[in-house]
C-alpha cells in the first residue's frame, strides 16, 4: 500500500506491506537508522520519535497509520545549516551518553519532555524519562542535560 508521510519536513511516498511498523519503514526503507531498535515491544524507548509532535514508540506504530502525518526523527532535529537543537547541544555538553545506542530515543523523549513542560523539576524529568532504558546508565548526565536544555529555553 502507498503511504504519504512527512518525515523530518520532507514529503515521502512509501510503498509498503500493511504490516510494516514505522520503525522498520524508517530504518529499512528510508535508511534513517538513527532511530534504534532495542526490544521491538515498546519496553526500552530506543525507537522514540515524534509523531505530530508527540512522543511515540516507532516499534508500536504501523507505518500505514502515519499517512498524512508528520514524523520527526533524530536526523531531523537539528535546525537549518546543522544548528544543534538545544537538547542535542546539552547532551554533548553534559556528555549524556556512553555507547550512544539509546541516545536518539533519549533525546527525542527529552525534547517531548521539555515541550510538555515536564522538565521543571528533577523528579518530573525522572518520571518522564522512565520509558527510556540506558544500560550504560548515563542517567545522571541525562538528567543534567535535560535540566540544562529546559533552562536555556
Amino acid at each position, binding site marked *: 500500500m502507498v503511504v504519504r508521510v512527512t518525515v523530518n519536513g520532507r514529503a515521502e511516498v512509501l510503498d509498503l506491506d500493511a504490516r510494516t511498523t514505522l520503525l522498520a519503514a524508517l530504518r529499512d526503507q528510508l535508511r534513517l537508522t538513527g532511530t534504534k531498535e532495542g526490544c521491538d515491544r515498546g519496553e526500552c524507548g530506543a525507537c522514540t520519535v515524534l509523531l505530530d509532535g508527540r512522543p511515540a514508540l516507532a516499534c508500536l506504530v504501523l507505518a500505514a497509520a502515519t499517512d498524512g502525518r508528520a514524523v520527526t526523527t533524530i536526523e531531523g532535529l537539528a535546525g537549518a545549516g546543522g544548528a544543534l537543537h538545544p537538547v542535542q547541544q546539552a547532551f554533548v555538553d553534559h556528555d549524556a551518553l556512553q555507547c550512544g*545506542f539509546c541516545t536518539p530515543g533519549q533525546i527525542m523523549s527529552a525534547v517531548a519532555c521539555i515541550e510538555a513542560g515536564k522538565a521543571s523539576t528533577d523528579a518530573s524529568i525522572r*518520571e518522564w524519562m*522512565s520509558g527510556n532504558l540506558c544500560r550504560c546508565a548515563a*542517567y545522571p548526565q541525562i538528567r543534567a542535560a535535560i535540566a540544562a536544555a529546559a533552562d536555556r529555553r
Partner: protein
Amino acid sequence: MTAFTRRDFLKVAAVGGGLVLTISLPGCKPKAGSAPAAGPIDPSVFVRINPDNSIVITVAKSEMGQGVRTSLAMLVAEELDADWNQVRVEQASFDPKYGEMGTGGSSSVLSNWKPMREAGAALRSLLVAAAAKEWGVDPKDCQTENSFVTHAVSGRRIHFGAVAEKAAALPLPKTVVLKPKADWKLLGKDRVSIISADVIHGKAVYGLDVKVPGMLYAAIERTPTFGGRVKSVDSAKALAVPGVKQVVEIPALADGINIHAGVAVVATNTWAALQGRRLLVVDWDQGPRAAESTESYQEFMTAAVARTGDETVNKQGDPDGILAKATQVFSQTFETPFLSHATMEPMNCTASVTGDQVEVWSPTQFPDWGAQALAAALKTDIKNVRVHVTLMGGGFGRRINPDFTVEAALLSQRIKQPVKVVWTREDDLTHDFYRPCSTHRIEASLGADGLPEAWRHRISTPSIDVFYGPKPAPGWGPNESDGSANMSYRIPNRSCEYTLLESGVPRGWWRAVSTTHGMFAVESMIDEIAEAAGKDPYEYRLGLIDKVWWQQPADSKTFPFNPERLKGVLQTAAAKAGWGRQLPPGHGRGISCGFDHLGYAAEVFEVSVIAGRLRIHRVVVAADSGPVLNPNGARSQLEGGVIQGLSAAIKERITITGGAVTQRNFDTYSMLRINEAPAVIEVYFVETDTHPTGFGEPAVPPVAAGLANAIYRATGTRVRTLPLGLRMA
C-alpha cells in the same frame, strides 16, 4: 623523563602531502576464551597528520561506551600538543599488526598508556625538527601548542599540517621525553566523548545499521534448550512468506565458539525473515540439559558448600582446625543468580563470504578472537579474514564472544551471499553467555580481640573457564574465585574452596564478572562479623588492611595489590560520606570496598526502606585507578558501574526452567530505570601516582554488599540472596 625505547618498531612515511607514523609490533596471539589478560601488552599506534591539519588517530580497541576512542586519542594528542578540536579517531579493523585488540578487563588504558604517549612524543619531536630545519633554528628553541610549532624568539609559527610532509623525511628520534603530569594540558581535564558528534545526529553506525550491497537478512530460531538439536524442520510455510528466500539449518558448533543449533530464515528484509521464522515448524531434540533448572542448581550448590570443596585455592594457616575448635563459628550463605548482559543493541553481525574470503562487519569487543574463530570455523587461513569493527550499543563482556560473528559468516558461506543476522531482544536474552549463578558459604571465627582468626569460604558456581575448555589441573580456580580467594583482610588462617556446578547454561564475562558475586559474600560477611565483634564496620575493615594476604596469580605481579591504595579509597569514601555522622530516622548507611581489575573502590550507600520500598538517598564512591586521564569519562564509568551493580543487586535475575531461559524481554528481565537510579552519586578520585588502569569495572563489585549492609542498618534485615527486589513477597 622517559626514555623512548621502541624506535626499532617505528615507521614514518609521507602520504598524500601529510605524514603517517606507525608503531608496529608483532601481534600477541590471544588465546581463545582467555579472560582479558591483566598486564602490559604492546599495541600498535597509527597517527596521520593531514595537510589540512586534521589529525587522525587509529584506535585498535572497541568503543562500546567506555570512552576508549576518547581516552586513547587523548594520550597521543597530549604528547603531540595537538589541537583537540582537529583530532579525529578511526576504528581499526582486525589486523595482526595491532597486537591484542581484544577490549575488556579494563585493560585499554593499561596497555596503551606508554606506547600511545610515546608515539605522540616522537611525532611531536619530528614536527619540531622539520620546522626548526626550515627556519634554520635550533629545535631546542622551538615549542609546540595547539597543533602549531612555534619559535618564541622570532615569533614564527607553523601549523603541523604544513610541516608534516617534511617531517616524514627526517630520522626518528632515539629518545623521547614524556611530559610530567604537571604539564598536562589535555589529560586530567574533562573531555566529552569523541563519538557524541555523530551520535546526537543519529549518524553513528552500529552493527545493526550496517548495509552492504546485495545483502540479505536472516533471523535464526535457535534451540530453546541449551544443547538441543534439530530433529526435523518443516519450512514450507516459512518459504511461502513473500521475501523469504531460503531456510538453512545451522548445526551446533562448540569449540569454544558455542553456536546453538538453529534454523535460519533468510529473506530480502528483516521483517520477512521474522515472519518466516514464526512459521517454521521445528521438532527439537531437547538434548541432555532439558531437566536442568534454577531449582536443581540451587539444590546442588547448597549441598556443595556444606562440604569440603573439590578444589582449594590459597589456603593459609589452619582454618579447619581453628574453626573446629572455636567456641563460636559465624556462618552465612549468600546466593546470586545468573545475569544477562542485556546490551541495548541486541547481537547482530553482517557477513560476506566468497570462496575462501571472509569479511564481516561486527559489533565485537574481540575482533582478534573473532578472526581466529572465523578462520577455524570456516576452514580458511586467517589471512583471508577481514573483521570490521562497528560501534556497539554496549558490550559489558557479551561481545567478547565470537558466536554471533561466526554464525553470520557460516550462514553467508552456505547461501553464498552477504547476509545480516539480526537477533531479537528475545534471542539476545535467551542465548547470552551469562554471569554465573553462585552460592557462597563463609564460616569465620573471632579471636579474643574480636578480630577474625579463621575464615573458610566455600563457593559453588558453574565455571566460565570450564565452559570453553577442559577443566584445568588441580588447584586451579583464580578466575572463579576472584573477589573471594583474594579477600584482602588480615586473617591468618584462611581458605577458599571451590566446587564446580555442572550446567548447560553458557557462561561468559560480565562487567567485573566473578568479583561481583565473590565480593558480595566477603563484604557482607565482614560486616556481619564486625557487628558480632561489636566494632564499627568501617574501622573494623580499616584495621584489617595491612599487607598482601594471598598469593597473587602470575599475571598481576607487575601491578601487585597495594593495601595502602585500598585503605586510601576506604578512608576517602568514609570521610566524604560523613561516616559516623547521625542519619535521619529510618535511614541506614552501609560500606564496602575492594579490588578488581587492578582498580580500588570503596562505596558508601545511604538508604531507607519504608513500606517495603527501598530508597537510595546517596551513594559515595571513591576510586583509585591511578592518574585520571579524562575525569568526565572516568566519572561516567564509575556512576554507570554503580547503577549497573544496583540494577543487578535489586532487580536482575535469569532463571532456568527445563534447560531454557525463562525471561524473554525487558518486561520480565527488568533493569534499573532513570526514575529508580539514585539521585545522588558522588565520585571522588584517589589518584595514586602510578601506572593508570581502567575505571569500567572496579566500581561494580562493592555495590551489592554496600547496599545490603545499608539496608541492614536501616531495617535490621540482612539481605543474603540477590536480587533483593524479588524478596518483597
